[in-house]
């Protein structure tokens, strides 16, 4: 390829045979020298990177309904949904209103438990990342 310089003398795109390089030639060659870096960085993963799917996380979905505090937490109790994972089938345990006593590292006797002190166990199949998953989880 050739192009004309301002005074009409044909020049090669990447240099002018027999002539000293102009400022334009230096700028052009610098820009082209950077091209391999510009194309390699964003488009080509490094050898250590694995190809990724885009199916979402395999973490369980929360129950969609909100409690009075704006959380996805279902209170334990009669006729309430016992689990915390949506799109789930499997074993569930739910227990609450724990009470008991304990001792801290200074010897103070401190009670634990309240009506809201609850545990939940979920073991089975759940749906996430567009397919079925297996897992065991505890709500503390």
């Amino acid at each position: 390829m050739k192009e004309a310089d301002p005074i009409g003398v044909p020049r090669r795109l990447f240099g002018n045979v027999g002539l000293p390089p102009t400022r334009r030639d230096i700028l052009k060659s610098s820009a082209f020298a950077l091209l391999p870096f510009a194309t390699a960085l964003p488009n080509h993963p490094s050898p250590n990177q694995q190809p990724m799917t885009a199916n979402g996380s395999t973490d369980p979905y929360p129950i969609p309904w909100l409690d009075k505090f704006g959380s996805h937490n279902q209170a334990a109790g009669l006729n309430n949904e016992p689990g915390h994972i949506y799109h789930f089938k499997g074993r569930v345990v739910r227990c609450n209103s724990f009470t008991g006593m304990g001792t801290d590292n200074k010897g103070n006797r401190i009670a634990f438990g309240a009506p809201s002190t609850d545990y939940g166990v979920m073991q089975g199949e759940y749906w996430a990342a567009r397919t079925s998953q297996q897992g065991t989880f505890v709500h503390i």
Partner: protein
Amino acid sequence: MFQGPVVPANEIHDFHPPIAPSGLFWVVPVSEGALTFSGDGSSFTLEMRNVTVIDQPRFPALDSIGTPARMSFRLVGKSTGEPVKYEDASKHFRFTGTRASCQLEAQVEVPSIGFSWKSDPLSTSKSDFAIMGEEVNGRYYDS
């Protein structure tokens, strides 16, 4: 944990996992072998060590601070045999199981404030409400 009568103003510690970015509420995975059921499924034991939790005594206040903590616990439960069924078609869930009794022993540590606490033995605790069984919800509800 409460210093004095069990009312919110007296709560001095409250241990739970953080809410997940998805909104999943205070739920953590259980490692393999930590949960065991009896052969007939009528009783279970869940034992976990050094679970990463936060101490957030002012929860549910939105500005309540959570201090990193660790918790170990043993939760045991046993079915009473009394059948229970909860179902809400509008919310797509069905639970079929029994009532149960559960007991808990635990210990916690909050290293940054030099606090630790250990409960009395398992047999001294109790829960007022417990159920165990099978649940289906969401996309599994109609299948």
